[in-house]
């Protein structure tokens, strides 16, 4: 159990770093979705089923859709 948790936490920190590192917003949002998915698995490991369901539905599903619809209507001006 502890080995699985350590592996998941390593992936969690990696995906958080990747979400911050890149300049393009689309890659950041995809990595944020992966972050939420790994966090769901960690919640299930810690025996919190309700929180895991909420995180899967909201973090990996709804947040991604809202962020996508936000970045698709943002116009980058001439000063690029």
């Amino acid at each position, binding site marked *: 159990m502890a080995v699985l948790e350590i592996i998941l*936490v390593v992936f*969690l*920190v990696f995906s*958080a*770093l990747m*979400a*911050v590192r890149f*300049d393009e*917003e689309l890659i*950041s*949002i995809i990595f*944020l979705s992966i*972050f*939420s998915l790994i*966090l769901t698995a*960690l*919640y299930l490991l*810690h*025996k*919190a*089923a*309700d*929180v895991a369901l*909420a*995180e899967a539905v*909201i*973090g990996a599903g*709804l*947040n991604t859709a*809202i*962020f996508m619809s*936000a*970045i698709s*209507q*943002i*116009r*980058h*001006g*001439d*000063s690029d």
Partner: protein
Amino acid sequence: MFTNLVFIILFMIGFYALVMKTNLIKNVIGLNLMEAAVFFWVISFSDIGGEVAIHKMGEEMTKFNDPVPQALTLTGIVIGASTAALLLTLIIELNKFSGTIDREKIEGLND
């Protein structure tokens, strides 16, 4: 100890994105990361090795994980999603007038 270390690392990544990045959407992502760090800390700290806090029919169970922090975390996740949506709406509306989402290039904010 492990949990505290993970919390500090995730929180500092989010704080870094909030302070250093000038892209406003990256700031919202950093805010989300900080929230997730706090929720992970609460859930992982209140795990004492018990079962999921749901009774099974016909069994007498007493060793559960603490249900109160889980309920508070559930509240926080939903509120985090709606505040993120509100912040993104403000960013969209700001972008309509200024044409950029870089907070250093918006005119009139820092001169």
